[in-house]
Structure formats: C-alpha cells, structure tokens
C-alpha cells in the first residue's frame, strides 16, 4: 500500500471541501446571520488546515494502483462526511458529534435522512449547507475532483468508475477528465433550469435553490419541516417530479442527446423500463388510494401517487403526503421500489434498474441452462451483449446488497424498534433514500436511534453510495497485504 500519494490526494480533496464551505458562509452573511458566518469560516479554516497537513504528510512519489484508488475513494467519502459535519457543531445546530456526522453523511451520500427534530429552527446557512452537501455528493465529489484536476492521468479512470453508480460506467470522452467535466456541466445546466422554474412559480431564491440541490442530487433534504408539501402547490410538485425523473436518468443519455445520435431517449432499454415502472406503480397506487378512500379526488390521488413513487424510485425522499398512512398494497409497493432505484449513471441510489435487468436475465439464463446444459447464451440489454464479467459482478452485488440489508435490519432491531421500522430504516439508508415507514416515516426523523444505530447507518449510507464493492474491499484481509 502506497499511503503517501493517497494522502496528498486526499489532502487536496479536503482543501476543495474547505472552499465549498465558504458558500454557506456567504449565504449567512446575505441573511445577516453573522454568528453562523463566523462558524462556517472557522470550520473552513479547520478543514483547510487538515487538508494542508495531509498534503504535507503525503508525497507525489509512487504510482496510484487499484488499492490506492479504492483507499482514495473510500477515504475521500469518509473524510468529506467527517469534515462536512464540523459546521453543524461550530454553529451549534447539532451538539453530538455522531449526530453531526449522521447529518453530514446523509447529505453527501444524498440519503436525506435527518436527526434534526425541528428543521425550521436551524439557521438558513446551516440548511443551505445541508442541501449543498447533497448537491456536491450527487454528481460525486471524486468526479468533481477529477474534472478540476488535470494531472491525475490514467489513474483517474478507476476512481471515476468506483464512484459513478451502475454496473459499468461509461466514458463519454477519451480523457476521463473531459467526461467528468461534461457530466458536471449537464448537472449545472439542470440545476439552473430547475431553480429558474421554481422561482417562476413563486418560490424565493433560497427555497428554489435548496430544493433544486436536493432534487438534482436525488437527496431529499428540505429546509421545511413538511418537505415539499409545505408549498401546497401542484405546480411545484410537477416541476419537482419532472426534475427528479431527470436526475434518476443516466446522464450520459443527455450527452448523447446533444450529439444528436440518441434523440429518442426511449430507445434506451433501461430508460424505457424506468419510465414503465414509474407509470405502472403510479397507476396501481393511485387506484389503491381511491379504493380505500384515502383520497376522494382522483387528480389529487394521481399527483400524490406519482410524486411519492418518483421520489422513492429515484431515491430522493421528498414527500408531499404521509405515505405511512396509505393502504398496505401502496406501502408494500413503495418499499419494493426502494430496492430498485433509478438508472445507472444517474445521481440516484439503490440497486439501479440496469442491475435489475441484468440480474433477472442472468437468473433466467440459469433456468434455461438447467434443461439445456450445452447451450451458450449471452445476455443482451437492448441489442448490446453484456460481458459475463459484468453479469457476475451484478450477481455479486445483489447478494452483497441484500445480505447487508438483512444484517443491517437485524442490528437495527437490537435497540428494540418494531420490525417495519428496523427493516425500512436499513433499506432507506442503504439505498440512500431517506424516509422509511413507521417510526422513520416521511413525517418522522432518525433522532430516536441510539449512537450505535446511527454509526451503523452512516456505514450503510456510505456502502450504498459507493455501491458496496469499494468499501467491502477494505474489510478483506488481502487488501491490506502487500
């Protein structure tokens, strides 16, 4: 293991993070929250100094191989969560370091689970930081870093692959740095458009920007206690729904849209299936809601069903209705969606539609091979063959993901909540969704859990965001051996 270049790398990453902490400081100044501005400045100085120390400890000598790459990506996310937690403490919002870490990790991993009991009592700068961390984590801090630093070279490709969600990260350009820059540009463009539209329908700049941050990153933090429901505006709902769907789509599709050769998004198998899942589940839940007269107005039932379905499938976690009170079929369907997630290459979490497709097709292939052992069958998605190495990696992911969820549920139930709470809390944190059911339902929060549970959930969130393998590698003995 070559720690020196990794340390230098991480130091620069932390330095970058320190710079981003100046944004909420400016926000605090704008709203006259002088104490908070100072708190953010102190946090930025602390973070920056730590970054400098890491750079000093490190050196430029030595190559970056896969092990160092894994260490950098995992280390980057852990350190970002740790230093991102500092402002919550310096501003006095969350006094317990573990609570601050939970909130920060939930931000960067775009989970959106909160331990704050009264969100609106926090200062505007802190809530801005909360949403801003989601926005940074959505497209990926490593991808941002790769986009900004020219001298990374070929090693950057592996870092990029580790962070970009989905079974096989696509490179749009021969240089990974250009790919990363393109992704961030698309992300910025969507952010600008959504903010503009939300302001057009009456939101102020602050609300529009913070909600856009949480929408485009599929994070789900809202500066309002009632989440998006606070605005009581179908127009806001529709805009947020549209952009959540956009954020859950593979970003390289947008690039191809620009290149004119992929003008029809529906030609993409994964996107098509993603929209079909959204449409079908929305209709079924809408019907279920009317059947049990949870709603009397079909339009309202349809819109709320669509919003909740999109919010859960894209792993955003916004709410416009308390779906914990919905009929059982609706709740079961929403929990099932928690395990699907958006498309590969999007900002969403969970397992991804693409993995579902490949996983199911791999299983069906085994079924065919039972009665036809000599057949050689390739798996296709659309017209593209899926390499066996990818199919294998997807099967491994399924097992790792589901067993982690199972183990997480068991460990969370030690402190004694009910079954649904423990199971959905594990699914919601591992899938980077946010709310679950019962005690962690959309109107509740995660403050009830004890310190151990919170630490475990921080780990689950990071495992989910980095898609298991990178973090799991750290738990193997051979990773640390030369």
């Amino acid at each position, binding site marked *: 293991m070559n720690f020196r270049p990794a340390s230098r790398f991480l130091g620069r990453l932390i330095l970058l993070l320190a710079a981003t902490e100046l944004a909420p400081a400016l926000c605090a100044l704008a709203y006259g929250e002088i104490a908070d501005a100072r708190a953010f400045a102190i946090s930025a100085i602390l973070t920056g100094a730590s970054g400098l120390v890491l750079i000093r400890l490190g050196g430029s000598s030595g190559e970056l191989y896969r092990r160092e790459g894994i260490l950098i990506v995992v280390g980057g996310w852990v350190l970002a969560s740790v230093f991102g937690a500092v402002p919550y403490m310096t501003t006095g919002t969350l006094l317990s370091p573990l609570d601050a870490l939970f909130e920060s990790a939930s931000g960067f991993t775009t989970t959106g689970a909160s331990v704050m009991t009264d969100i609106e009592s926090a200062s505007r700068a802190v809530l801005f930081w909360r949403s801003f961390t989601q926005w940074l984590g959505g497209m990926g801090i490593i991808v941002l870093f790769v986009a900004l630093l020219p001298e990374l070279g070929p090693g950057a490709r592996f870092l990029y692959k580790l962070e970009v969600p989905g079974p096989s990260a696509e490179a749009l350009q021969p240089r990974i740095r250009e790919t990363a820059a393109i992704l961030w540009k698309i992300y910025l463009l969507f952010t600008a458009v959504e903010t503009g539209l939300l302001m057009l329908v009456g939101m102020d700049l602050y609300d529009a920007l913070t909600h856009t941050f949480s929408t485009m990153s599929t994070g789900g933090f809202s500066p309002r206690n009632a989440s998006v429901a606070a605005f009581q505006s179908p127009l806001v709902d529709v805009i947020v729904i549209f952009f959540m769907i956009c954020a859950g789509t593979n970003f390289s599709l947008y690039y191809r849209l620009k290149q004119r050769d992929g003008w029809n998004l529906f030609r993409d198998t994964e996107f098509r299936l993603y929209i079909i899942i959204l449409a079908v589940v929305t209709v079924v839940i809408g019907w279920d809601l009317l059947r049990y007269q949870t709603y009397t107005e079909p339009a309202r039932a349809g819109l709320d069903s669509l919003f909740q379905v999109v919010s859960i499938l894209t792993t955003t976690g916004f709410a416009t209705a308390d779906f914990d009170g919905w009929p059982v079929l609706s709740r079961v369907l929403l929990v099932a969606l928690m395990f699907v997630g958006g498309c590969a290459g999007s900002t969403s979490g969970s397992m991804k539609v693409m993995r579902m497709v490949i996983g199911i097709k791999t299983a069906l292939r085994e079924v065919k091979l039972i009665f036809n052992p*000599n*057949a*050689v*069958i*390739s798996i*296709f998605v659309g*017209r593209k*063959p899926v390499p*066996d190495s990818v199919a294998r990696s997807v099967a491994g992911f399924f097992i790792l993901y589901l067993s982690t969820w199972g183990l997480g549920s068991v460990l969370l139930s030690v402190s004694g909540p009910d079954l649904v709470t423990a199971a959905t809390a594990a699914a919601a944190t591992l899938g980077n969704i946010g709310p679950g059911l019962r005690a962690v339902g959309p109107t509740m929060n995660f403050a009830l859990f004890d310190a151990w549970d919170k630490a475990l959930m921080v780990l689950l969130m990071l495992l989910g965001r980095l898609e298991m393998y990178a973090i799991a590698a750290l738990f193997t003995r051979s990773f640390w051996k030369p």
Partner: protein
Amino acid sequence: MGAGEVGFHLARSLSRQGHDVTVIEVNPATIERIEDELEVRVVRGNGSRPAVLARAEVGKCDLFMAVSSSEEANLTAALIAKQTGAQRTVVRISEAEEVIHDRRLYEDLFGVDLLLSTELLTTIEILNEIRGLNTMAVEYLAGGKVQLRKIDLDEDSPLTQLPLHDVELPDDSLVVGFFHGDSMTIPSADHRAEPGDQALVLGTTEAIGKTERFLASAQVELGTIVIAGGGSTARTVAKALEPFRADVRLIEQDRSVAKQLSQEFPRYQIIHGDPSELALLKAERVDRARTFAALSAHDETNLMASLMAQELRVPQVLALVQRAETSHLWRRLELQSVFSPRQLAYRRIREYIDSDYSANIVSLTRGAMVVERRLAEASPAAGVTLAEIKPPDGMIVGAVARGDRVFVPGGDDRLEVGDLIILFVREEEVATMRLLFPGRERVLSGG
C-alpha cells in the same frame, strides 16, 4: 502468384489452353511439383516483393492473379503489379464482409479488377443449396445495402396473375428480370410471368424480405438449420441466413468462440460441444432439423459430423471440404453436397477469363448484365429525372446509392453526379447504356 490449390489448378488449365503462364511461388516443394507436372514458367520468391514481381515481368502480363492464401500478400502484389503495368488484376481474399462492403474501396485503392472472397463464394453456394435454387439466390450490391434475390413464382403470385405494371410492390424494391427456363428477360411493363418462372428482384436490404413474402405466396420454409463449427465460413453463412428468419443452431467446440457467437447472433441458439459426437447431436434433437451443414475448418470433423447427421436422417446434409481432391471420396459415402472453397474460387476465375473479362454477372445469366456505375459529369443522364431519360425497354435503373442512402428510383427521381447506379441491361442495349452512362466497366458478382 501463389500456387496453392487455387493457383495450381488455374495454372494447369490455363497452360493447357495455350496461355503463357508464369507462376510465382516461394515453397520449394510446390515448385518441384509444378516443374514436374506443368508446362509453366516458375519464378521463385515472395510474390509481394517488387524485385520478384519484376523478375516475373508482371508489367507485361494481360492478367495478374494473386491467389495465395495470404490476403495482405495478395493485395500488395496486385497493387505493385497494377502500378508497374499489368493489364488486369484478380485478388483473392478470405473475408466475405470485405467484398460485400468495401469492394469499391479495393477497386479504387488497389486497382483490383476482380476481388473475390472464397468465403462469400462458398456462402452463396451453400445458401443456394439450402434454399433449393440451382443458381444464384442472393447477391449483394452497393456495399451490401442492396440485395438481388431470385424468387420462385407459382400460380398464386401477383406476378403471374397481373401484368407487371399492375403489381404494386413494396417500396424500394423492383422486379428486374424473369427467368423462363434458362433464359432471362429484362421485362417490359406489360410482362406477365408464368407459373414456374423465377423473378429476379432487387431491393434495399430492409425492403427485400417483405417483397419476397409478397411475391412468393408459397413460402420457402427453411425449417431448422444446424451449423457445425463456428469458424468464419460458418459465421458468414449464419449471417447470410439472418434475413430469412430461419431457426439456426450453431454447434461450436471452443467455449470462448461459442461465447462470441452468442453475442453476435442473439436470435440463434449456440451450443457448446463436439459436433462429431453422436450423443450431443441426439441430445440437441438434430434429427428434427431440415438441414445440417458441417462448416468447420477441419475436414475430419466435417466428415464425421456429416456422417452422424446422415445417420440421424437429416434430409439435407452439406459439408465444407478444404481438400478438393478428396471430394469424390465423400460422394462415395453418399455425401453429395460437398463444397470446396478453393474449387469455387478456381471456377469463378475461370469464368472471368472465359467470358473475356467482361462486366457480366456470370452467375446471373447469359444475354443480360448488371453494371454498377458512378455517374460522371460527362454523362447525359446527370441532373435529369428518370422519366426524362426514357431508358429503353431492355434497360432498368435498379438502384441508386447516394451518400449513405440507397433507394430504388421512380420516374420523378433525379440522378446526380456522384451517384452509384446499378443498371440491368440486355446485351442489345449495352451500346445505349454506354452512351448514357460512360465509365469504367466493372465486374459485379459475389466473388
């Protein structure tokens, strides 16, 4: 150049006919055999070296044939020969794709007059056999974007019930000829075919399948086709069968090759195993297949596999044989449909020479020809609509390739300079054709 199986046979028959033949060959054993058996001049050395070619005086020859088994050597030699003054060149390559897609490129870059692919020749022969047609079943024109197909007509076909101008064909396809017995006619608008005739239909690759289903009411049911081996010939045949929607199964011994096949042919069943193993063939229900084609690169495997298929009473058994001299032995084992790629290449070149290097599609018919022309600026047809050109009865403008687009032109379509035009012409109208479309004559055929 190259006195392998193809070259040796060519040299023997050409010298017997009284041509002066020079053979360039590097292998001492082959040279010895040539000197013993043939009355030809032998130049020792590597045929892709300018010095060797100069010694053979290729600059003075009427026809230079590069028929060794090395594609690169053949192309290099042909290029040098053409540059130093050889009248015509024939180049043998292996891959079929090259001939289908890039023939023009080879013609323009290397000055090749006849580019032939042993694989494509074999594929077309095999396809004919599978479809039960005695001559050409499919030709690829304009870089594979246009196909020519021969279709059997019965009394229910629209073409036998109505005169040609009343039959509304699907878009981008055209009837360009009728076969009645052995003779082919280029039809006039009021022509009506008789049952038992065959129609020659041209269409874009997308359109032609639809047209065939429209014209041939009694479908040629290809049934299940089992192909043993996954080498390049097997792949080319499998690819050529794709538009016919046949149930194709490929048996391949090498797992990684089988894997590749399964990615290349999502609609086919790929089986991993030894095609000469009776148990495997039985387990895969090969006895229910209509056709069994042993197309691996090894004669022994093909022989064993075909015998097994015969044992399982598969109605049609085809086999690929590399060593042509053994084909009579195969026949003795009642394996009738034996294909030797080298023999086919030899036959194709003979036809080319015998027809006086003409631009005829020899495999098509006598009395009519297919010509591919790039529309020159000097042509009187440039910038004029088809209706204005008024092509005579014995001439049909079959297809136009413009940039990436290929279409079958109607009366209102205007021809532009640079268009690639495929023409069907009766011999009497060749003079008119040359007047309308001046340019270099090119050989058009599968090989």
